[in-house]
């Protein structure tokens, strides 16, 4: 089912937590809401679920405006960050609960529970109580409870954040397969950009309650709409250098780069993988000194000082350099991003405004 937010605003008292938020999600999409802590992702999701009232604006599921539809009748399924499994019910009862309140008869209930339990490989757990389960198992049960009833959409609020790193990666993959298999519209909230990149068909980046960019993961990475998105997505973060372009040259303290653009005060953005480090002097390269290096196993992050600027570069795993040792940088300026200096404009997708 398609989902549409139209100029949705939410205030708690005087503070606007979600501000003029518009988004159109197509049927079957896997959309990730991405943003730093406190930016209003959970609030947005809860408004969609009907757990929080909408201050102004409209929310549609399919063609139905659901602002005033009570939660029970919205037919959405939600996976809570805390999983919210009912502690007094067995796993089977937990999964069957949405069916029970819909008066699905016992036989069918049992069949459907068995089917999802098989799908998520939790059959051996069915008779246990939630507290006898590990975090990963609970997470699967929460998922099972959501998918057992074929809702109009799944809402997931950081469902993987309580898991350890390894399990998180594993569950991430399983989630993606599952959604592919079911084809149900899914909205997934996270502040982990790796999750966003790997799961989403499209990512909506939020900051302080406002939508910054809504696009495919690749486009978000390669064409960030503004400085905030550029810096927030990607690890390590994009290098941002404030300066100005004069007569085809980008100028900043200790940095001079020929750039073929018209004069303006700009911030130049360069991903670490577009900064190449060499221990031998190169023609036209920028001299820098090594601040520290971090070996990641398959590659090395090199933190560099160029005058007052801190710059991060990705280097091969075998890159070796002492602290304070002098190096030379070559920048792939054709991959650079340019943002107007200082004030970062918030992005609104013209196609989205309905």
């Amino acid at each position, binding site marked *: 089912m398609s989902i549409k937010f139209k100029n949705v605003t939410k205030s708690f008292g005087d503070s606007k937590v979600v501000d003029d938020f518009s988004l159109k999600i197509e049927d079957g999409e896997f959309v990730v809401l991405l943003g730093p802590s406190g930016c209003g992702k959970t609030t947005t999701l809860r408004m969609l679920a009907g757990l929080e009232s909408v201050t102004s604006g409209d929310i549609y599921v399919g063609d139905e405006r659901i602002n005033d539809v009570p939660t*029970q009748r919205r037919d959405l399924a*939600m996976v809570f960050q805390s999983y919210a499994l009912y502690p007094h019910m067995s796993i089977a009862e937990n999964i069957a609960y949405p069916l029970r309140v*819909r008066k699905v008869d016992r036989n069918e209930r049992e069949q459907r529970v068995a089917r999802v339990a098989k799908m998520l490989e939790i059959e051996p757990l069915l008779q246990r109580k939630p507290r006898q389960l590990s975090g990963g198992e609970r997470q699967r049960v929460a998922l099972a409870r959501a998918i057992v009833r074929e809702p109009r959409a799944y809402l997931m609020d950081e469902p993987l954040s309580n898991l350890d790193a390894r399990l998180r990666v594993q569950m991430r993959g399983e989630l993606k397969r599952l959604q592919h298999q079911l084809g149900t519209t899914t909205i997934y909230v996270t502040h982990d950009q790796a999750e966003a990149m790997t799961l989403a068909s499209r990512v909506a980046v939020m900051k302080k309650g406002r939508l910054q960019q809504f696009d495919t993961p690749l486009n978000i990475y390669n064409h960030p709409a503004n400085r905030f998105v550029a810096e927030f997505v990607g690890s390590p973060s994009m290098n941002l250098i404030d300066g100005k372009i004069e007569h085809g040259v980008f100028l900043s303290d200790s940095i001079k780069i020929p750039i073929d653009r018209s004069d303006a005060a700009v911030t130049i953005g360069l991903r670490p993988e577009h900064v190449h480090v060499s221990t031998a002097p190169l023609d036209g390269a920028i001299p820098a000194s090594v601040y520290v290096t971090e070996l990641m196993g398959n590659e090395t992050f090199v933190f560099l000082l160029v005058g007052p600027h801190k710059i991060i570069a990705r280097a091969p795993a075998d890159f070796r350099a002492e602290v304070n040792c002098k190096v030379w940088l070559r920048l792939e300026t054709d991959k650079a991003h340019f943002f107007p200096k200082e004030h970062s404009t918030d992005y609104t997708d013209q196609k989205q405004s309905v």
Partner: protein
Amino acid sequence: MKRTRIFRTGWLVLALVAALAPVYWMLTISLKTEVDQFAIPPKWFSFTPTLQHYTDAFVTRSFGQYLLTSAIVAVVSTFFALLIGTLAAYALTRFRLPWNLDHKLSLWILSTRMFPAIVTAVPLFLMMRDLRLLNTKLALIIVYTAFNLPFVVWMMRGFFAEVPRDLEEAALVDGDSRLGALVRVVLPLVSPGLAATAVFCLIVSWNEFLFALVLTQTDAAMTLPVGIAGRVTQYEIKWGVMSAAGVVAMMPILVFALAMQRYLVRGLSLGAVKG
């Protein structure tokens, strides 16, 4: 180190003896023949027990009937107080009402519990007289329901507040109604607290004296405490009968109290201190 332990143990034993000896003494009196009762020096352990006072109290005299009245009044009033109070407590913890009304209502409800009993006993007597409800169990049931209500609201507020909101929201998203979520998800989770609250109401109703004294004077409507009090203040006192009635009156309370020790402090402090 050792001296402090002996010191501490001494205090402990002293406190234990002080707490239990008087009750034990009543127990012995209820089991002694009249001769043994008046023996000097007092017989703490060596006497031939007899159940004669118990049969006297509960078979010959009307104490059996008082016991039944006490039980009926306690159980029925507890049921209604729980029903009404739990719903109110749920609303007051789970909904934000305008003008901070939820908070103000809670405090107002608590304040009614602070009235000294005698203050309401006088007008309640007159009201019940006007309604022709004096000397009925119904009068006591009504009064005890109201008396226990603030307590139920405060205790249950505490227990409801301990149930994570997530669970209810999950139930709503799963398609359940508010009341359905209350019945299927929240109540099962607070059921230990509900049980503790019920036991407390039972104890309070069972022990209550002043309202019962004021509202019931006939054998048919009298509760056990009023029955006992009536005998004590008579000119000639049957000590054995009285003690037997006292022992029977305290037994269910002790069983209940021991069964719910865990919540005792919390209950006695109206939820203010979590023991």
